[in-house]
């Protein structure tokens, strides 16, 4: 039905000299997505700070949905391209209005005339179209301040675009504009939400899951793959590392004081994530921590973990309540998967009384005497690596012998 898409870029007004790079990053991402979803030729142009995409064939709902998930897109207008003839514009506008289910809506016509040679000016076009639309639809009313339907008309040098459909994107910054993170996934509610929030801020991500087999079963892997598939739609192709951790956890458990188990597991996961970050060129680590949610997310434990990490740890959920996290997870579609029950290695190993205010000396002595670097490197080498494409399809990457 729609063969023209106008993409409005978010936060472009914040940008100065890097505006071009910013715009280009988003354009390549959109191009990439369209190429994998859309059949038919595509024509890209920039008009008035918007990205305009034209095609001979109509865009499917699936394609448009995929575009909506691209970070940095403020909104998307679905448009019809019409010859530069107001009668034809009116005919198409009538078609457009006929599709609106509610019969007695309020509307407004908003014309932007970038082709100044067009005989009527914007106000005249607004008035003329408004008048004729009112004649054709006796139940509708004009409301210029808060219309239910806004008919946008763009008069360009070669044609006119009309549109009533505006879809809101997720906004934020184009992916990659803010660097690269290693995202620690857990299979719960929090980490996918954290990933989404940072995708919105333009962070490309590599996903890491610490797999405690044989302490947990393979069913947790299905969950991780499903979650990765969902959140990868906010990425532009990404990789998932399933890092075997069970045997190593056994080693730590035997050495460390029981009450330090959980926080020490965290510490070594962060170490391992830093090693991975080094390999893939990521600048920071991302976790789903919310302050005080569990014992390893107290200020004391967070402070210790921050000290050991070579890279900053991003915790976008730090001030979120659980209900708020649940809310976002429902919006991004990870909720249903996150709540599927699975064996949890943490609860299996969990000490009766996990440490809340860790003893710094014990911590420092232990971490100094037990770097376990070789074990961590081995864990990473044995990781199963998956490639996630633009459609969220996951395929294992053959191991390099």
């Amino acid at each position, binding site marked *: 039905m729609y063969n023209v898409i106008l993409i409005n870029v978010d936060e472009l007004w914040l940008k100065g000299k890097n505006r071009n790079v910013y715009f280009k990053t988003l354009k390549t991402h959109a191009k990439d997505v369209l190429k994998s979803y859309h059949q038919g030729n595509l024509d890209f142009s920039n008009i008035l700070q918007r990205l305009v995409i034209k095609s001979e064939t109509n865009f499917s709902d699936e394609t448009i949905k995929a575009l909506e998930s691209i970070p940095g897109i403020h909104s998307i207008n679905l448009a019809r391209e019409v010859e530069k003839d107001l009668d034809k514009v009116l005919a198409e506008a009538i078609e457009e209005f006929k599709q609106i289910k509610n019969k007695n809506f309020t509307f407004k016509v908003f014309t932007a005339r970038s082709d100044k040679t067009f005989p009527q000016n914007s106000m005249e076009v607004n008035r003329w179209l408004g008048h004729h639309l009112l004649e054709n639809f006796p139940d509708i009313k004009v409301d210029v301040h808060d219309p239910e339907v806004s008919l946008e008309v763009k008069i360009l040098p070669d044609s006119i675009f009309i549109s009533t459909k505006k879809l809101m994107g997720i906004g934020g910054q184009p992916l990659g504009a803010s660097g690269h993170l290693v995202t620690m996934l857990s299979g719960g509610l929090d980490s996918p939400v954290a990933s989404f929030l940072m995708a919105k801020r333009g962070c490309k991500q590599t996903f890491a899951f610490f797999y405690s087999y044989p302490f947990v079963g393979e069913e947790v892997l299905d969950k991780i793959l499903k979650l990765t598939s969902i959140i990868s739609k906010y990425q532009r192709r990404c990789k998932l590392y399933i890092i075997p951790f069970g045997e190593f956890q*056994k080693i730590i458990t035997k050495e460390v004081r*029981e009450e330090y188990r959980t926080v020490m597991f965290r510490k070594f996961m962060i170490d391992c994530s830093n090693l991975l970050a080094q390999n893939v060129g990521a600048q920071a680590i991302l976790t789903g921590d919310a302050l005080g949610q569990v014992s390893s997310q107290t200020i004391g434990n967070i402070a210790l973990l921050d000290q050991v990490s070579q890279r900053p740890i991003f915790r976008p959920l730090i001030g979120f309540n659980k209900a708020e996290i649940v809310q976002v997870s429902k919006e991004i579609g990870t909720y249903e998967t996150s709540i599927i029950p699975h064996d949890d290695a943490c609860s299996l190993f969990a000490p009766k009384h996990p440490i809340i205010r860790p003893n710094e000396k014990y911590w420092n002595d232990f971490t100094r005497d037990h770097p376990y670097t070789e074990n961590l490197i081995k864990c990473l080498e044995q990781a199963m690596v998956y490639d996630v494409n633009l459609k969220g399809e996951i395929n294992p990457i053959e191991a390099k012998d």
Partner: protein
Amino acid sequence: MLYLDYAATAPVRGQALKVLKEKFTNDFANPSSSHKLGRKINKEIEAIREGFIKSLNGDKYHFIFTSSATESNNMVIKGLDYVKGDQVWVSFGDHPSVLAPVKTLETFGVKIVGIPTDSYGRVDEEKLIFSLNESVKLIILTHVNNLSGNYIDVVSLARKIKKTRPDVFIHVDAVQGFGKYPLDLSGAEVDSISVSAHKIGGPKGISGLYILKNKTINPLLDGGGQEYGLRSSTLAGPLMFSFYEAYKEISHDQKKHFEYVKILYEKVKEMLGDNIPGVLFPFPYGGPFILTMIIPELPSDVLVRHLEMIDIFVASSSACSSKVKGFNPTFQALGIDEKYHKNVIRVSFSEIVKLESIDFFIEKVLEILNDLTFLKKK
């Protein structure tokens, strides 16, 4: 590989596999065909049918081939004519292939009644006989329970039931005991018996049902009228021959096999009982083919996965229902306290398991448990 999950299924025995291949290759014709090839196969199938019957002195029975014991159970349970208010008696610790079809009868106004059991999951025979009433239509007995290993002398119990209520229909699920325990049908005490090939080293996809010749049930499958009109479908000749081959092999030295498996069972029970602190054997009257144990504080899935890593395979609960979360109604019905439902391990044996494999198994289990002591909360 060390496989100790024979109650779930067994590998196809050598001779049974040979027969399977031979029959699929050469005697593949449709036994209903009127040509020579079809006639020959049909005759052979009738001969093995007779073999199944003779082996249990079941002259008063038809032997019908089905695709699975689940089908056999469904056939009988759903095939009887019920009137509103009829009762079906069943043990809630039985297999889902019995419990699930029984559950469907509720929509016809049939009442499901639990067979009285003791705290070890065994049928309380006295109480059962005592509580019989006029409305009981069908009683389902499990010959050997797949989790507890509890054995019922179904013939003797059926005799007692029929003394009080001669018209009640008694169906036996004999999947775990068939070929392993003696069963004499000469007195025609039970009305039908489900048996399966794959639990005794036959192929999957073939099973059977013994049913008294004078009893009628409504077929699930109508068609060409095979199996006395009780189950239409092209006869799966090769599977049938292979089933019979496996059955001959396991039942031939039945007593010897039983005694041998008992040695395996007792060895595991004794060695693990002596060496694992706190281990429980919830079914002291079960065995010897099935040994269920509880290791408190150790989730059974964790042990199962540690064992699978070294190619040893046991079960953490019935293969059909094992999944993530805690409460298990079957365990509950068998008398296992809910706090142990995640700690149940089932080891099941066959006469093809070597004694030294059992030593290896015991050694490895103890080694793993020793390595996992840190999981015990202080």
